[in-house]
């Protein structure tokens, strides 16, 4: 029982939680906080004068003292002007502080997002991250704005109302004191009942987002398999659940939210009756009564607002939790803590293992690649080739063993130097919206036109780009949607080449490129990038035959493909066949 009371009290105090959280992001502007709060105080004091003055004015009218009325009218305007001016400081200052907060927080969270390692992203959906960085930040900003601009002044106002009532008549203040706990109780019950609904709403909203994303990006699959109806039904199911949860909240809101003004109204009626009877009996001035009823009518809105703030604060605290989950230092990389050293030398793997959960994907792998070598890496589908090459730029760390460049271990290099030296063209290519030039120059903004053209030429994409009316200024759509599969891959190769890497990893980077173009690309790389160490992951012999030697990954272990060159010679000297079956079958056996 005591715990429950404590919990409830904590929740009430918790309405200030987000504001406390925001302090960390207000840096030296924290001092403005006091200005805003003081302005809120003065504004409320002067505003309180208005009903008092109205009461006095009416009182003097009742006493037929008409001459003092103008005096009161002037004071009313004056009080309002002061309160208005202060209100300006409050509104503007609150907006300012809340914007400073969201500005700093956004930069901070974005910094964390950029520092998260690749492992972090494996368990995250982009939709969820996006909603944390946009909706959640905006929700808390809004809450903080409301706290400063409305909640704090409201609390002052309620305090002053109490004082004013106390001055007017102790009994009025007593009636007021009785209503406040009742109101808070209603607010808390309301909040508790809403909670699960809000949680569900968040979940369904997320589902809706994810479903849309998939449906749109995968629209060709949906159409190709004529799954439109099924998709529509699925979506409509989610929106229906979303609807139901919202209705649940609507019903609660209907009851509890509107109960608050009713409670205030009941109190006002009691004041009116009590004050009225007393006034009739005593024949006293009705001024205080008018003021008191007026005060009640003024605070009826702020009071129900207070109830709503308790609910908001819950949501806002949930948002802060979600934001803070990103802001932990977990799974973050230190990009440039160490002094810059440019990796240089042979690449060697010594006893490297990699496990994912309890699956061992790479087992005690050891091999060495000399500077300037062009090495092929092959192996069956899902053998772990991509996993292996992703260790080199430090996307993931081996579970055991070590990787060296020259005589230094990988973790002796700052990640920024390492990634400057290693360029990777991944299997799944991400192009960004923008022009072809933006995309090629992504990793090296300082490159001049000639360099860009040269890398495009090496990647065999320059002819195509030149054939476009706007050439390098052509805007490619989202995810490179307006390019063919092979064109996308070649833009990505050009992008990697432009960074002039010491180590170039091509992870099946030409799978959609025809053999002839592929040949030209590898030729160019060999000719133009003689000092670059190249690791080529591929299933295709036509690609692998460019390699000086080929490594094969089987069951998590690496082996050299023996006599690779010889095998190839043999194949090339075979007579041309017109019997395709024989040819194909010989070839399809693989290495």
């Amino acid at each position, binding site marked *: 029982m005591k715990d429950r009371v404590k919990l409830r009290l904590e929740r009430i105090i918790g309405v200030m939680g987000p504001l406390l959280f925001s302090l960390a992001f207000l840096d030296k502007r924290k001092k403005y906080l006091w200005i805003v709060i003081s302005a809120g105080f003065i504004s409320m004091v002067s505003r309180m004068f208005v009903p008092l003055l*109205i009461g006095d004015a009416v009182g003097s*009218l009742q006493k037929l003292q008409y001459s003092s*009325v103008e005096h009161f*009218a002037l004071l*009313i305007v004056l009080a309002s002007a002061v309160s*208005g001016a202060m*209100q*300006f400081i409050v*509104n503007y200052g609150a*907006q300012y502080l809340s*914007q400073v907060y969201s*500005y700093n927080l*956004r*930069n901070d969270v*974005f910094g964390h997002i*950029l520092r998260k390692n690749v492992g972090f992203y494996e368990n*995250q959906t982009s939709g969820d991250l996006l909603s944390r960085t*946009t909706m959640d930040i905006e929700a808390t900003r809004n809450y903080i704005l409301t706290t400063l601009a409305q909640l704090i002044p409201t609390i002052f106002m309620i305090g002053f109302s109490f004082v004013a009532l106390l001055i007017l008549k102790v009994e009025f203040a007593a009636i007021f004191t009785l209503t406040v706990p009742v109101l808070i109780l209603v607010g808390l019950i309301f909040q508790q009942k809403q909670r699960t609904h809000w949680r569900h709403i968040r979940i369904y909203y997320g589902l809706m987002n994810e479903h849309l994303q998939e449906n749109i990006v995968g629209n*060709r699959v949906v159409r*190709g*398999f*004529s799954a*439109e109806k099924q*998709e529509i039904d699925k979506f*409509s199911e989610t929106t229906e659940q979303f*609807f139901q949860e919202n*209705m649940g909240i*609507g019903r609660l*809101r*209907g*009851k509890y939210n509107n109960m608050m*003004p*009713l409670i205030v109204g009941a109190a006002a*009626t009691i004041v009116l*009756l009590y004050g*009225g009877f007393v006034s009739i009996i005593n024949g006293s001035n*009705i001024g205080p009564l008018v003021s008191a009823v007026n005060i009640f*009518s003024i605070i009826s809105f702020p009071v129900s607002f207070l109830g709503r703030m308790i609910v908001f604060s819950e949501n806002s605290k949930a948002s802060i939790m979600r934001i803070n989950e990103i802001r932990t230092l977990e799974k973050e990389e230190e*990009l440039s803590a160490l002094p810059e050293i440019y990796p240089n030398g042979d690449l060697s793997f010594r006893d490297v293992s990699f496990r994912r959960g309890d699956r061992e994907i790479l087992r005690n792998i050891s091999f060495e690649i000399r500077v300037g070598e062009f090495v092929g890496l092959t192996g069956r*589908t899902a053998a772990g080739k991509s996993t292996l090459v992703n260790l080199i*730029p430090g*996307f993931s760390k081996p579970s055991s063993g070590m990787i060296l460049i020259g005589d230094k271990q990988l973790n002796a290099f700052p990640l920024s130097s390492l*990634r400057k030296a290693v*360029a990777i063209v*991944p299997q799944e290519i*991400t192009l960004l919206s923008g022009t072809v030039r933006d995309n090629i120059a*992504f990793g090296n*903004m300082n490159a001049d036109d000639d360099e860009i053209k040269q890398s495009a030429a090496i990647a065999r994409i320059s002819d195509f780009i030149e054939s476009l009316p706007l050439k390098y200024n052509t805007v*490619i*759509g989202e995810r490179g949607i*307006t390019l063919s*599969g*092979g064109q996308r891959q070649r833009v990505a190769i050009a992008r990697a080449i432009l960074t002039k890497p010491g180590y170039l990893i091509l992870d099946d980077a030409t799978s959609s490129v025809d*053999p002839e173009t592929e*040949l*030209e690309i590898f030729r160019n790389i060999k000719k133009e990038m003689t000092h670059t160490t190249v690791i080529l992951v591929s*299933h*295709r012999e036509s690609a692998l035959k460019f390699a000086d030697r080929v490594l094969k990954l089987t069951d998590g272990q690496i082996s050299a493909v023996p006599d690779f060159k010889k095998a190839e*010679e043999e194949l090339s000297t075979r007579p041309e066949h017109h019997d395709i079956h024989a040819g194909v079958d010989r070839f399809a056996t*693989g290495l």
Partner: protein
Amino acid sequence: MIYTRELTDLPLDYDDQEDQLIRTGKSLPSFSRLLRDMFRMRRESTEVIIAVMITAVAGTLYPLSLGYAINSVIRRDYTGLYLFASGFFLLYVVQFFSNWLRTVSSTKLAQSTIKSLRDRSFQNLQHVPVSFFSKVKTGYLISRITNDAETLSEFLTFQLPQVVSGITTVLVSISIMFYKDFSLTLYALIVIPVLAGFTFSIQGRVRLNYLKTRKTIAAITGNLSENINAVRTIKAFNVEQRIQGNFNELNVKNFEANMKASKLSSLYGTVIRIIESLGIAVVIIAGSMQLQSGVTTVGILVAFVIYVQEFFDPVVQLSQLYNSYQSAMVGVSRIYGIIDSPVETMPGGTGRKREFRDSIELSDVSFSYGTDQALNGIGIRIARGEKVGIVGHTGAGKTTLSNLILKFYSPTNGSVTLDGVSMDEINTEDYRKLIAPVLQDPFMFRGTVYENIRFADSTVSRETVDDMARKFGLSEIFAGLPDGLNTNVGEMGRNLSEGQRQAISILRAFVRNPEILILDEPTSQIDPDSEKLIIASLREYLKDKTLILITHRFSMISLVNRIVVLQEGGLVEDGTFGELLDRKGIFSELYRIQYGPVDRYPI
């Protein structure tokens, strides 16, 4: 330029549309359409209106009952006080119930409207032409259907009823005031023109400020969304600092835009407060003069003071509503934009598979995504049961050709026919039941491997999937997965290797058992051993089926009995493997390169 050339036939220029709407403030058409949509729910909308009216009337009556109660006090009339105080309370009770009703029915009205808008736009997205998606950004569409629809919720549930109630309050209070004391009312209304003039004079600026804040926040969201999706690329190229710098720039712009907007709106609040107090002062002074001449009573004067205060509440609220009205209207007109996007015209369907008897024929087909010709005068006839390979350099137009056969696009010139019937006259759904494609980019939905394979047809049993995987030698590819085929593939299939994704995409098509298979480089990421197994089983599987196979890998060529070669959008070779090899054209060149040694082919 690819992008501009496409924008020319964009259904609606979304950004400009928003811009224009806010700049001119012409949002009435969308608003009235929204109202019409809402009024379709007769019962709820009637309930809302009635409830709002009752609330408003009760609200305007209460100062009056308060005034009378006070008059009773002055008159020392106990019963009067008792009566009017009860009336005073009764009005609160009435308001409680009418507000309750209003909240529930307006929630229902708002949420069903939103649901219907969402459902309708989603539905429409299933039927717009495929080309729509290369013109409009995914993030754009998602945020319209989720976010914008959500901003409507606040507007429809609370603010719209508030407008109705505000207007009712103002009208009722003015009538009561006129009825009670004509000349005092005129005094009370003196400040109205000042208020209206002030409000109107700053509205244009408010709109522009608002536009700016919206644009800057949209830029932030867009930037975030792209960067989150491209985070691996950012890391690979080590450009975190630059990206963070760009983000900071957008962030600063948003901050500045908001502060500018806030200056004006804060000022507005202050001025309104002062105008309100002027109104009260005028009423008091005028009232005192009338009291002196005995025309009015103290109670009435009190009621008038409260009226003036009450009166300003809806006005202040309405002006605050303005921004939210604007944003709701921008949102809703964009949702209507999606709902209204032209869909593919579709002749009536039978709901059944269409029969495929004879052939698919492309005659003199040309196609362009914009200005460049992607396909040029293509003529091919693919007979039922034929196996055709499509070969060509990268960018030659192979995928584009398959897009036409899949009816994703229609040719700009020429025609595609099925059994002599033009595609335009065939119901897309019926037609697509004949086909199963393996697209060049395998796409994965969230869920397990099973769910992805059975994506199109959940009636396919797991056993069938297992059998198929075994039969095509693909089970081994999935063997390493922690939970086998029950493993979750992750967002976009990220927990799988690229080859595993491709294997899923192949099985997805095969379990469909279609009459026509269109495979676009189905095994580009699959190892030769597995590929061999696939080929071996495919031969049997393809019996009686028609195959269209796009490939760079000639290992698969053994499956086809005819090869078509594309070159820069044109059909340049067509024949059997042997014929083409003898011709020493593009095909034989590509073939030699793949199987010959490096040195034989100087550049």
